[in-house]
């Protein structure tokens, strides 16, 4: 008999003794398929889920609270820790929100670099999704292949900004660095590589694989109405037949000029979503290919010219007195955006990542709310899992593509 104490409390499974005989099990927070720190309390009738209760907060770091205590530029590296699979998309969403508030626009070259990085991050994130999802479902080798290509993409990121996971590769008002030598050539090689591997490895291994189809088809079915009602965005929404991509509908950065398609699936199940992820990677490659020649036509300016908010270039700071004074004030006090509020949605690899910023004219944001797509996708689990079998739970968690950095914030 176990003795319960404060260190190891003893939970008796009361429901198991009842006549109707349901069983309550804890899925996570240490489960390898829980994608981080998801604790899922499942009530099972035999093998069928009767009730699902996602319990989150194991990775809560108070990022919104930290935003109220940091100047706008100080907070930017913290956004890396939201969706740590694709950090640049968080940096960008935050930088864009602040830029909207300030009323400035990044110069053309910065826009080209940012869009490239965003799409590269989308590929990194989707490859990670593919790898872990396939691994969860039981396809080990896809994991190895997908991580191989993801490694190349992360090498490109490392070449650009020096970091592989927490990039901070975007600044408010532009980008910190120009592209290093040979980066575009490497990107072109990477595009070819990913496109080839998509067709000949991943799709060849999975798309018509009958085990894969049996595990994914008609699993995790979300109707279009439910998807909208539960706040699904990104692939979760388009997988249910609603054609809404923020890059197309509310274009930001260079997306209005670029030619790409928004894939939609009417299947509403995990298999349809898997196909969308593959298709989106192809579209990302297509976008990156269009961006490569655009880079050469731009001027070398990387940061927007707004002396009230953004420091001048290093050269100006070192040679011109007034630029140095501005820089000193901006570093020691931080920029003071005008009073107002802004909500800027962006299409991150996971869905709609938006930052709501309320500014009172101080160097500290009065309130910052991060609208994280995974948070709402986790909420959907309490509807989606009911009625499914325990074997499909892992597939459904995988298909929602949640990352706990941004669920718990």
């Amino acid at each position, binding site marked *: 008999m176990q003795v319960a104490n*404060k*260190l190891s409390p003893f939970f008796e499974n009361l429901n198991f003794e009842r006549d109707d005989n349901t069983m309550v099990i804890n899925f996570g927070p240490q489960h390898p398929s829980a994608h981080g720190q998801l604790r899922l309390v499942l009530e099972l009738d035999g093998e069928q889920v009767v009730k699902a209760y996602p319990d*989150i*907060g194991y990775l*809560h770091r*108070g990022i*919104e*609270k*930290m935003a*109220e*205590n*940091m*100047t706008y530029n100080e907070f930017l590296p913290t956004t890396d820790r939201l969706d740590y699979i694709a950090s640049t998309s968080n940096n960008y969403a935050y930088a864009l929100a602040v830029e*909207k*508030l300030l*009323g400035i626009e990044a110069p053309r070259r910065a826009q080209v670099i940012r869009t490239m990085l965003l799409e590269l991050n989308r590929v990194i994130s989707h490859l990670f999704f593919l790898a872990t999802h396939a691994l969860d479902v039981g396809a080990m080798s896809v994991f190895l292949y997908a991580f191989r290509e993801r490694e190349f993409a992360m090498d490109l990121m490392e070449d650009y900004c020096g970091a592989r996971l927490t990039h901070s590769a975007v600044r408010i008002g532009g980008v910190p660095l120009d592209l290093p030598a040979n980066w575009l050539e490497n990107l072109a090689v990477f595009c070819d590589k990913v496109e080839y591997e998509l067709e000949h490895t991943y799709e060849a291994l999975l798309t018509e694989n009958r085990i894969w189809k049996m595990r994914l088809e008609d699993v995790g079915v979300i109707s279009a109405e*439910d998807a*909208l*009602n*539960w*706040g699904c*965005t990104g692939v979760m929404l388009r997988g249910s037949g*609603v054609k*809404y991509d923020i890059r197309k*509908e*509310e274009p930001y950065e260079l997306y209005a000029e670029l030619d790409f398609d928004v894939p939609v699936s009417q299947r509403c199940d995990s298999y349809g979503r898997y196909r969308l992820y593959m298709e989106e990677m192809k579209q990302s490659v297509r976008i990156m290919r269009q961006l490569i020649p655009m880079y050469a036509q731009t001027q070398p300016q990387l940061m927007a010219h707004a002396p009230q908010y953004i420091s001048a270039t290093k050269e100006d700071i070192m040679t011109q007195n007034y630029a140095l004074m501005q820089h000193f004030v901006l570093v020691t*006090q*931080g920029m*003071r955006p*005008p*009073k*107002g*509020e*802004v*909500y800027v*949605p962006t299409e991150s690899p996971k869905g*709609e990542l*938006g930052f*709501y910023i*309320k500014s*009172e*004219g*101080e*160097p*500290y944001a*009065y*309130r910052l*709310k991060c*609208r994280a797509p995974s*948070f*709402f996708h*986790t*909420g959907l689990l309490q*509807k989606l899992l009911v009625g499914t079998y325990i074997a499909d739970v892992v597939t459904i968690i995988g298909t929602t593509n949640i990352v706990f950095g941004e669920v*718990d*914030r």
Partner: protein
Amino acid sequence: MRKYVPKDNVQGKSYYTDRFWVAPRVPREEVRDTHFTGVVATLGVLVKEAHVELGQLIVHIEARDNVAVIKVLKETCGYTQCSEQSAVDYLAKDGEFELFYQLLNVNEAKRVRVLCRIKKGEAIESIVPLFNSANFAEREMFDMFGIKVNNHPFLKRILMPDDWEGHPLLKTYPLQGDEFASWYEVDKIFGKEYRDIIGPENRDPAKVDRHDTKRFARIGYEVPFGVDNTAGETQKEIEYSETLLVNYNKKESKTLDKRR
């Protein structure tokens, strides 16, 4: 005189603000867009004030009308998704919370933000019957601000532990956490009586306790493990190994100028 520090807002503040600095404001435009004009007309008297800020319609309403307004927006105006819902703490300034509902019209690609204000201690009606996405969002708002939501299906803390005291996103809640937060683990695992034995949490990772004889704090002055040396300690010189160019053991290498 000690500088006055307001207790009702303990968040980050700039240490210097120009006396004559007046913060500019993001321009609030009139509602001219045909779609937004239609929305405001449909809502009619429910709208207290409406304007467009940075491309999105902002509608101010009474807090008691929130379900009615959002129902009209959803069913008549086609705002079929509630992207986000949360609050802003204005207790220090106005004694109120400002709640916002961020809605999206997928067909028109338009966004509306519904704002309302409630006093401290007042509750708000849940919009979960209209939008299930508000389920988690309202729970988070309750967790972070302590705003009660009437008729919510499962109003419980979501990010913080269930037995937590205080609401972290309030302006009165310090970034470092309060008294309760600093003893939370000790109280929970060992009990309050262990606070003295365990001591406060060390938030300085570089801190070295000079009387600690258990955790390698005495490098160069080794004493037996766990010995109490608070009374006094014998100095033991460090002897460095001989090197070719520099003699580290030499004592008289550096002397201060006598005049200082």
